Every structure is written in structure tokens, then in C-alpha cells.
């Protein structure tokens, strides 16, 4: 079984995330780049399957700027067998379409059984890459899974939707995306960190994948304007002296909120 885990390198949500107001791109100086937490959960799912099933190969795949190598090594230290890093100047500010096309081209080179992704990334909030990949790779998608079972030739799980919970299953090869209901990623141990240094990390460019960044056939999404909203200021703060509930009630009534 070969499992490809897709992780996105994003600005740390714990930091002060900034957009460059001229280019509309993420300001990479402003905050630290980390593997999106949901990506670590996706990797954990693959690794726990590999722990229990000998002969499982776990490949990490990311499309990210040059500097992301250190972040990818962390995934190798957690236990992935190898990593592919797609990096190219032509991918600066890539929209969902170009991102999906490039990732699909990288996945196509591997003989994969299962692709695991996060349900939604914390920087883009697109939540569409998994379905786009399934379409491009011509395989089923089973997205937003809050529990997953991987067995011979089939992946299945629970899929919470608006009106209830579905139980879904797909024949492999397939693309699945998972929610944060799945366990968080393991911490790399010393042995893992040492081993990661020797694991294969392939860096690919667009031309390696035969992708043209500005294909005239494909429409792309462009940012027209970016404006920053002024940060919110703090208002009144009172310390409870036994009557704060009353005061709060007054405040809500005065503001016609109760």
C-alpha cells in the first residue's frame, strides 16, 4: 500500500498573520511557517496504519516556497518514508486550480493507493483541493471524514454533513480528506529526527511535472483588492463585586441586545 499524504505549509495560526497589501500574498516575514495542524493529523492517520501494516509506504507531498524544506523534514522525522517538495517561482500566488493541477501531476508519477489530505487549510480556507484532485486523478473522493478505516482495497469512514452523518466507502485508489476529529500528530523523537536526515526528499519544478503556470486554456482566480481592517479596541472591563450579572444585564438592555 502506498499512501500519499498532502501537507500544506502555512503561516502559524498562533502568530500574527499578515497579507502584503500590494501583492495580496502572504507576508512570509511576518509569521513562522509551519505544517498545517490538519496535515499533521493526516500524516498521523497514515503512520498509524503503517505501524500496523508492514509494507506500507508513506510519501509526504507539499507544494511550497523554497524555504519550506525544514518544515518538511519534520514530517519525515515523524515517520514518513520520503517526501516530495514542489517548488517553483511560477507557483507564487498560485490559485486553487494551478495548485490542484500541479499536485495532481506530482501524484500521478507515483503509483498510489490512497491520498490523504486535510479537509480545509487554515490560510486559504478553500477546502477544495481534495475534490479537485479526485477529479483530476479520476478517482473517488471521500471528504470530511471524522473517522477512517483503511482495509484491503477499500477506505471507509464517517462523514458529518449539514443534516446528519453519512457512512461512506470508496474503492482504492481514492482521495480522502479528514477533519480535526482525528488524532493529532505524534512528536518526532530523537531517532526519527536523525533518520529524517537520510530519507529521500525530492524537489520538483513545474517543468519536471510538465505544467505551465499561465496556461491560457484555464481561467484563474485573481485578487483585485486587499484592505486591512483596523484592529478591534477593548471596551469596558469591570471586576465582579457581586453585582456584575446585574450590570451586564443593564448593558445588554441599554444596547437593545436583550
Amino acid at each position, binding site marked *: 500500500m502506498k499512501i500519499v499524504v498532502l501537507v500544506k505549509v502555512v503561516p502559524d*495560526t498562533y502568530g500574527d*498573520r499578515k*497579507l502584503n497589501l500590494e501583492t495580496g500574498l502572504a507576508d512570509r516575514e511576518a509569521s513562522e511557517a509551519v505544517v498545517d495542524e*490538519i496535515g499533521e493529523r493526516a500524516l498521523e492517520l497514515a503512520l498509524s496504519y503503517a505501524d500496523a501494516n508492514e509494507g506500507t509506504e508513506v510519501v509526504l507531498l507539499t507544494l511550497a516556497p523554497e524555504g519550506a524544506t525544514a518544515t518538511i523534514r519534520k514530517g519525515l522525522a515523524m515517520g514518513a518514508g520520503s517526501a516530495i517538495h514542489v517548488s517553483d517561482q511560477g507557483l507564487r500566488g498560485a490559485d*486553487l*486550480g494551478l495548485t490542484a*493541477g500541479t499536485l495532481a501531476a506530482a501524484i500521478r508519477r507515483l503509483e498510489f493507493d490512497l491520498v490523504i489530505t486535510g*479537509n*480545509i487549510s*487554515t*490560510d486559504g480556507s*478553500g*477546502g*477544495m483541493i*481534495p*475534490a479537485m484532485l*479526485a*477529479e483530476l486523478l479520476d478517482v*473517488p*473522493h471521500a*471528504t*470530511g471524514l471524522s473517522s477512517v478505516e483503511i482495509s484491503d482495497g477499500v477506505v471507509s469512514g464517517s462523514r*458529518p*454533513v*449539514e*443534516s*446528519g*452523518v*453519512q*457512512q*461512506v*466507502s*470508496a474503492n482504492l485508489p481514492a482521495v480522502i480528506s479528514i*477533519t*480535526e476529529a482525528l488524532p493529532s500528530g505524534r512528536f518526532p523523537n530523537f531517532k526519527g529526527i536523525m533518520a529524517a536526515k537520510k530519507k529521500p526528499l525530492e524537489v520538483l519544478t513545474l517543468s519536471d511535472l510538465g505544467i505551465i503556470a499561465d496556461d491560457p486554456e484555464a*481561467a484563474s*482566480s*485573481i*485578487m*483585485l483588492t486587499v*484592505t*486591512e*481592517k483596523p484592529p*478591534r479596541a*477593548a471596551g*469596558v*472591563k*469591570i*471586576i*465582579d463585586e457581586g*453585582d*456584575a*450579572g*446585574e*450590570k*451586564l*444585564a443593564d448593558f*445588554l*438592555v441599554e444596547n437593545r*441586545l436583550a
Partner: protein
Amino acid sequence: MTEFPRDAILVVVEVQGSGGLEQAAAGLLGAAAAVGTPVALVLTPPGAGSAAAAEAAVLGAARVLIVETTDPSVLGVPSVDALFAAVERVRPDAILISHSLDGRDLAGRYAARSRAAVCADAVGVARDEEGVVAHHSVYGGAYNVTSASTFGAPVITVRQGSIEARATAQPEESETLAVTPSEKPAARIDSFEEEVGASSRPELRGAAKVVAGGRGFGSQEQFALVGQLADTLGAAVGASRAAVDAGYVPQSHQVGQTGVSVSSQLYVALGISGAIQHRAGMQTSKMIVAVNKDSDAPIFEIADFGVVGDLFKVVPQLISALQARKKQ
């Protein structure tokens, strides 16, 4: 068959479970009506098409295309095939779909198939000289961004609960759309457990008032206090991720980066520290009230009215004070 309007906005709405149109339908049609003529594509289980079409017209669809799925156990792919056929027929200026899980799958697969541009997680739409543009609220509301397609109709997914505009009802004009199946491999829905709308409380998404609780409640039993205040105020119930992880409340109530984003008139945060990821989902609310026993809790940095105190004392007193004032 008559021609479709030249400024058609194709709105995709699905029938949910055993019920009617998905919640987002009214907002999607409301947004569409502001930038063109709303044409609805309703995707339904067998036999539910005409009821759904009537409902879509009431919500403002000038024209309705009905597609009844032949096999409701196939996940996603039939909707993509239907959307493909609908776009061929309608030639819309834009396609609006809910930013729900199924909506995102549909938008993503369709865009990949047709090589259309996607504008994801929009909180509004507008029209400029060149076409339809999407408005986004990025990084937890810290930035406003507009986006558009380089050419062709953009596929815009709209954040649930973000559109207040409603379209005026239209006389029903519907037709059944013929769809050629793509036969692409798809996952199967083996079973479905419907969540019966147990609560009479407002839906969290798009709620005007939200009362949210965090880890400070300490247990599921004590979290019931959140519901009591919510009911007193006519508010929806929200929660921090820590409260969800601790099992006080189902995940669907999570507010924040990886939960629901709300922009309510009133947001009451009880026993919530105000971690940056929580704030990302609520800081665009008009009025923020917080109760926390730690005066350094970051939630106070954005609260219009903050109370440093024990929520188990403050909240019951607040509830009885509000009830007493109601009786006056």
C-alpha cells in the same frame, strides 16, 4: 424551451436528508438577485424535484432546473455532472454554491473539470464592469479581499450564514434538465443517520446572537448554563475547540479558525480565554461580551464589555436579572 437571461447567475441548491432545500439556499439566491437573474439548479433525491423547485421560486429563483438523482447512494459525482449540464444550458455569468462540505466538493470537482476559476469562501458578491466579483474576509476578518476570474464565469462558494439579503419570490418556471452521466468513479454513501432538528434554538451560522462557552465550564453538565443564557437571549449556542474536545458540546457548535465563523450582533464568550484561533471566528461580531476569571485573558482585548469574575456566579445572576427585566 425559452432562452435564459443574459445576466443569469446559476445557484446550486441541494435537498437535505428528508427535508427541504439546504439552509443556505435563501442567502445564495439573495446574493444572486443582487448581481443578476437567479437561476436555480435544484439537486434532489427521486421524487422531490417539484416541491424543491416551488421552494426555490419562493426564495427568488426566476428559473429552476430540476435534476433528480437516479442513485442517491453515489457521493458527489452526479452533482458535478448535473452542474456541467446546467452551465452548458444556462451560460451564466457566475455560479454560486454553498461553502459547505458537499458544496466545496461540487465546486472543486466542477472547476477542475471545466477549468473554471474558483473564488472560495466568499462573504458577498458584487458586479463591476468586467463581471461578478467575490468579497472575502481573510485571516479571521483581519483583511477584506476581492477576487474575480481572469475570464469565464467564476465558481463562487459562499460562506454559510454570511448573506443577509433575500430575493423577492418569483412565479415558478421550472424544467427538468437532462444529464449525461460522466461515469467517473465515486464513493458510496452506505448509510445515513439524520440529525433531527432537536433544538428550537437558532442555527449558529448566521445567528444574530451567540452565547459561547469554553473549557471554563469544567463539565458537560455545567455547560448547560450556556444553553440557559442562550434561551434567555434567544441566541444560538457556540463553543471553543477546548469545550468541543472535552465533549461538552458537539463539534458543529465550534466557533473559530476550524469551526464556524460568525459575525453576530452580540457574541457572549463565557470561560473562553480568547485564543487567536477562537477570535478568528468571532471578532467581526458587532458587540462582544466576555466573562472570565482571569483578568489577563486575551478575550478582554476585543471585548466591548468584559467581566472579570466567576462565571458560575455572574451568569446565573445575569439570567435572573434578564428574566426580571422581561417581566417588568
